[in-house]
């Protein structure tokens, strides 16, 4: 494969049989990414997919790129090592709500705060798919699943809020079946320098079917999808029932009102402000996506990339001290000769 070749989806599609349940949302994400990568100018040989364990984490096997299917929850840490050793690569991390937020939550937040140049896709299906249906940290309260016959009692985590609390420089959210939106957000993520965290609502047809219908059911979606676009006032809903997101009156935070009542209070979205407070406030519009829910890019700011700074220090050290030499290393400190 030489630089000149124009690549297609096929160049990113491995020969491995795809093994998800028929109807699983993972298929759509896979297809969207396989067809997006050539457009982005990515090269299979310099692309690496790193995943943990879960249905979603089977992803690397289906990409004809380099890949690591690792162990449960550790993909961000493993990918960080790869990134530090090889800042030249395009590294994607694929994880699930269990993999990335339950066992792997800590590695995730540390990768984000460090701003390692990883594109982290969290397939959130609000369930443990691979182990056949236990509730997850994103499952809504009262979820009846295998380990919670009387309903879950753990308050769920909102991945976008958590990522923002962890100093993430890029935070986005999209939906498995909306290929256009998905590809657009993934493109933004790819183009961001540093950690890009993207939550993808993904339907698990077998163990948690329909939890995202508020956003995927055609009739509901028009009312519920708050599409964030940089520089645009945040409005949503059908023409005849258009809503706007405004500063909360007599308090702090954001709230939804009829466009008519918004006046000039409608918030204009702004992804690159250093202060993540707006992005955070927007993320609170929907703790779980049962009603109006923002999707799109919440935040995208510039901050030095971790591994580039590591390499920088190495280069500075070489510039300052000269390339190291074992003999002089060994002889550093006091030496004496015995003859």
């Amino acid at each position, binding site marked *: 494969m030489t630089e000149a070749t124009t690549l297609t989806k096929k160049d990113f599609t491995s020969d491995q049989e795809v093994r998800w349940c028929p109807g699983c949302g993972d298929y759509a994400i896979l297809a969207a990414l396989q067809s997006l990568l050539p457009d982005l100018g990515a090269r299979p040989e310099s692309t690496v997919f790193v995943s943990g364990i879960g249905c979603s984490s089977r992803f690397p096997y289906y990409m004809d790129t380099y890949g*690591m299917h690792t162990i449960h929850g550790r993909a961000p840490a493993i990918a960080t090592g790869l990134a530090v050793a090889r800042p030249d690569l395009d590294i994607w991390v694929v994880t699930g709500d269990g993999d990335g937020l339950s066992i792997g939550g800590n590695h995730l937040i540390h990768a984000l705060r460090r701003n390692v140049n990883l594109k982290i896709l969290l397939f959130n299906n609000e369930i443990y798919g691979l182990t056949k249906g236990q509730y997850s940290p994103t499952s809504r309260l009262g979820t009846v699943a295998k380990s919670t016959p009387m309903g879950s009692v753990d308050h769920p985590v909102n991945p976008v809020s958590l990522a923002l609390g962890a100093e993430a420089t890029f935070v986005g959210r999209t939906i498995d079946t909306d290929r256009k939106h998905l590809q657009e957000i993934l493109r933004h993520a790819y183009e961001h320098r540093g950690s890009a965290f993207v939550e993808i609502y993904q339907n698990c047809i077998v163990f948690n079917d329909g939890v995202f219908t508020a956003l995927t059911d055609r009739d509901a979606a028009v009312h519920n999808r708050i599409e964030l676009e940089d520089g645009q006032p945040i409005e949503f809903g059908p023409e005849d029932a258009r809503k706007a997101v405004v500063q909360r009156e007599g308090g702090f935070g954001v709230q939804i009102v009829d466009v008519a009542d918004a006046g000039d209070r409608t918030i204009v979205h702004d992804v690159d402000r250093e202060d993540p407070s707006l992005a955070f406030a927007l993320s609170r519009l929907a703790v779980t996506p049962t009603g109006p829910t923002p999707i799109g890019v919440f935040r995208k700011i510039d901050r030095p990339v971790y591994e580039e700074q590591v390499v920088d220090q190495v280069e500075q050290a070489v510039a300052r001290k000269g390339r*190291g030499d074992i003999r002089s*290393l060994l002889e550093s400190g006091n030496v004496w000769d015995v003859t």
Partner: protein
Amino acid sequence: MTTATTESEKDVERRQVHGVVVRFAGDSGDGMQLTGDRFTAETAAVGNDLATLPDYPAEIRAPAGTIAGVSSFQLHFSDHDIHTPGDAPDVLVAMNAAALKKHLPDVPTDGTIIVNTDGFSRGNLKKAGYDSNPLEDGSLEGYRLHPIAITSLTTTALEDFVESKALTTKEAQRAKNMFALGLVSWMYSRPIERTIEWLEDKFGSRPELADANVKALKAGWNFGETTEVFTFKYDVAPAELPPGRYRNITGNAALAYGLVAAGELSGLTLFYGGYPITPASDILHELSKQKHFGVRTFQAEDEIAGIGSAIGAAFGGALAVTASSGPGIALKAEAVGLANMYELPVVIINVMRGGPSTGLPTKTEQSDLLQAMFGRNGESPLPVVAASSPADCFHAAIEAARIALAYRTPVMLLTDGYLANSAEPWALPDVDSLPDLTVEFAEGPNADGEFLPYKRDPDTLARDWAVPGTPGLEHRLGGLEKADGTGHISYDPGNHHRMTELRHAKVAAVAKTIPDLEVDADTGARVLVLGWGSTYGPIRGAVKKVRDKGVPVARAHLRHLNPFPENLGDVLRSFDHVLLPENNMGQLAMLLRAEFLVDIKRYNRVTGLPFRTSELEAEILELHNSGGVA
């Protein structure tokens, strides 16, 4: 101990001795480690052989003046080859009552004790748990006791500094360790010039502190020279070390240097991912200073991320290393299994400490051998290598890297708290004699135009290593069982059995490239003393003592614990008795019994300290004199 010959010079008599063990002991805040380090440097400069044993309280500062807060540093130096920091101190320098209380039991009754009388206030005595003042109640009779008001003498010497407000009284007092160092340096005829240079360098930004410390140092020296307290001083002649260039080195530093060297020898970027933990942290610290070698260090959020990052780096083609101590190694277990399945090179270092659990973080132990062997789920064999002395950590690191790279396997490298922090003179190796560790990455298809990531070298059984960036060799690794050759996921029963056997066979194949176990045996030796890791020094010391008594004995030391050298079974079977001293409850003994069905005489102590040569000597003699074949 001190087969003394005497010559006189001026009014101070000089005595020639062959070897001395000096122990500095004081409060954590008294700077005993620094004093010991400097005394070691002076001693190295004289050309003595030496070995050190730092011993400090577990990680937190204990209250000043208490026994829990005592920190000590022992140095053994001599005019001949030695291997241990010494069983018992000939000279104890005790900076306060607690230090005396804690260390007195180790001093032989005719030993020399220098005490700082200023550290024996009523408060000091109480904190140390003394009912009466041992300096006054006669309880130290028999010892060669030198009560000196070290603190007062120091502050008197530094009066000017305090008066001129260049120093606070506290700062002046803090120089008392330099007074002690000066005095002991005088006693043993150590040159203090280098220490003076060192102080000037260290306190560069505060010259008044440098001056004060130098003044205290000289005051100590002059105290020895001029007062009547000491009627003789000692000379220890340079040891007859093999010719070469020498330096002092601790195990952790040598290990870090070995890793840097392995990076250079392999031509790969050295990547280190780890999380701080006593006593392994210094490896990270040392490596983070070697950035000009291209070394990339990553202080991870935990140990799992430490090894995880190393696995990622290895996939990217780096020489990947992680280090920790027992509890951290436990956390890495799952990921070690992944590296095993990936068949990627990763060097995993365990600087062992007292266990179980948090255990004794600052103390030494050898109790993680079985964890290294079996501390993972499934059949997950990996090579295990151990270092035997501080300087040997350098070579052990290179050997671990060699095996990891040549066989594409995680390798466990074992050292311990004793090796990590002790120092010894090191005859620097000839850099050109170090092994070539270069690796060839796969660059194209290896099977009929295809690339099979699990195609193996027939000799080493190492699989081909293709790194991202190489067009056409794109492949995916995973922790699920993989099909022989293709590396695809495979649930096939026969394949799983075959791959399990292959992973075992690959580790076994390492034996072909490791030397036979060398045995240092006297004719007529009935007892073989076998060791591994840091028992090297104590065993050599004990064997020497036994030989000095005219008793024949044999000695061998294992660098490779998995696989064993091919001749090991024969060696074990060729002696009446095999004595295996371990700082654990018999871990290697278990492996040997299981492998060779031979009885092994275990000698096990877990006290957090290295063996004393005397206890091993006694064991050897007893076994030698015992009847029959075990």
